[in-house]
């Protein structure tokens, strides 16, 4: 009897947590195991299960350290897959971004994995979590990682396309095809679809010319560039908390810069441009206003206090976790294949400020890499 017939004729049911909590589940390209998913979703409301999840994560991290076989990438993959299944919403508290980063950093110099599709996929998933993945693709390019696989070219081209760099995307796909990346059919197909999409695009010649993507720096006196730069005003929040937690952002929200705004909006305001000229010094009273003004209520906004969410794995203690700067802790030895010290860092995931570290990595995914490995 085939497994499906067997399942159908049995009285077994599949739990329906996946449907009840579907908003909390980030879909994965490779799909999910529904039983693991249901279990993980149950853990949300069940401390016992939550504990066992964390215990599992710890064990998988240990397994990376203790692995003796000839494929040291495998235990990393087991760990990554498991974290993805066990933390369905993903997000900054799962530690996933940290694990990606440590995995790719453990093997970037290794010839053995340069062409390994699994290794490439870890890089690509890492890229998806970063605010600007271009630096990652450049890194892969400079270090010859993954360039025999279609997946690399497709992902790279899609990224460039998302930044409206159509010519670059076109060149990348063509390079992949001429390099005979595998599977070639998939690449050709992706190219066809890309061409179809670029036909439908409105003519965006301006962006074409600007291959240099350094941001234009302005000091508050220049209006935000074009209407297309408008973003929703970022909600002001004391301390960084829940805003980004459950969203996989590729780009952070940018703050709408309204130069006519002269009401103080917390720390994110730019100084009012009422008198934007430096030519007059202003009267004495005006110069001294910081010392003379009476403290007044902020009448325009009431900032609601939000409770800081519990970090998964953090013990509910009254102590405040002291975040130790990168420079002050032991630097992991990058060239050790077994990489004991770096998984030691991973083990400290439970006690550390996972979210903070994740955010830092999102902004600067290669920050832990030695500078001689970075593309010029």
């Amino acid at each position, binding site marked *: 009897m*085939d*497994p*499906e017939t067997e*399942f*159908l004729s049995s009285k*077994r*049911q*599949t739990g329906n947590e*996946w*449907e009840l909590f*579907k908003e909390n*589940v980030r*879909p*994965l*390209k*490779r*799909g*999910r*195991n*529904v039983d693991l*998913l249901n279990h993980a979703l149950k853990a949300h409301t069940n401390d016992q299960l939550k504990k066992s999840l964390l215990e599992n994560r710890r064990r998988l991290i240990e397994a990376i350290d203790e692995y003796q076989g000839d494929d040291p990438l495998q235990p990393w*993959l087991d760990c990554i*897959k498991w974290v993805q299944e066990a933390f369905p919403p993903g997000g900054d508290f799962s530690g996933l971004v940290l694990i990606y980063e440590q995995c790719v950093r453990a093997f970037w110099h290794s010839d053995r994995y340069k062409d*390994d*599709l*699994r290794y490439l*996929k870890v890089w690509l998933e890492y890229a998806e979590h970063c605010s600007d993945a271009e630096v990652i693709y450049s890194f892969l390019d400079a270090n010859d990682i993954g360039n025999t*696989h*279609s*997946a690399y070219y497709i992902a790279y081209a899609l990224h460039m396309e998302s930044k409206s760099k159509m010519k670059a995307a076109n060149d990348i796909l063509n390079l992949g095809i001429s390099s005979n990346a*595998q*599977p070639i*059919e*998939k690449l050709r*197909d992706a190219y066809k679809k890309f061409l179809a999409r670029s036909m439908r695009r409105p003519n965006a010649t301006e962006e074409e010319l600007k291959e240099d993507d350094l941001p234009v720096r302005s000091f508050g006196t220049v209006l935000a560039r074009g209407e297309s730069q408008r973003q929703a005003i970022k909600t002001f929040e004391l301390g960084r908390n829940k805003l980004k937690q459950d969203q996989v952002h590729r780009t952070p929200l940018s703050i709408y810069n309204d130069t006519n705004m002269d009401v103080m909006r917390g720390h994110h305001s730019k100084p009012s441009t009422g008198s934007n000229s430096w030519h007059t010094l202003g009267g004495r009273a005006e110069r001294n206003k910081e010392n003379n003004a009476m403290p007044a209520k902020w009448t325009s906004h009431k900032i609601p206090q939000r409770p800081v969410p519990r970090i998964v794995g953090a013990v509910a203690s009254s102590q405040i976790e002291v975040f130790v700067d990168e420079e002050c802790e032991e630097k992991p030895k990058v060239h050790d294949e077994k990489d004991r010290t770096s998984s030691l860092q991973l083990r400290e995931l439970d006690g550390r400020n996972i979210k903070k570290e994740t955010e830092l990595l999102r902004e600067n995914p290669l920050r832990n890499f030695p500078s001689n490995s970075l593309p010029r």
Partner: protein
Amino acid sequence: MASRTVAKDIITLRGSAAIVSEFFGYAANSILYNRGVYPEESFAKVKKYGLPMLLTQDEEWLEAGKLQRVVMVIMSKATKEVLERWNFSIETDSDVVEKGVSREKSDREIMREIQAIMRQIASSITYLPCLDEPCVFDVLAYTDTDVPVPFTWIESDPKLIANPQMVKLHSFDTKIHKVDTLVSYKNDEWDEQ
């Protein structure tokens, strides 16, 4: 003092077959659309000319009580590898088929059950792998062995997935036909192209 029977609560074999067949149409459309098997632009064409032809046959078989299962198979266009299987297995009340009796169940109740399944089909992206290559589909009908194969169909192998992940969805029941839904899909492979 004859009690008034609410006509629409009576289900006949023919009525039930119609409901089930209609459900297959909805489900198939929803699956093809949600899974992106056909690009949106060509979907209207598929709806009009593709599926209905397949499904009128189902209705006939359902009335005869000879349809056991309908399976929608989604395959990679390039490699023909089976990626997903949507299984609809049918239990028919043989009493009804043989003796022509009818049953009682409110239409609304049945519709509610069907809607629950449709919602689950749409929500299945939660766990189904992304189909990021062009795909094609096939409909398989499992019938009793004494059913002759109509000329628009061909005999086929079951096109199974090896080591599938399986999820059982809700079922619905007209009291004459009970339909169970199961979706199976390929296990994740980190090193798959």
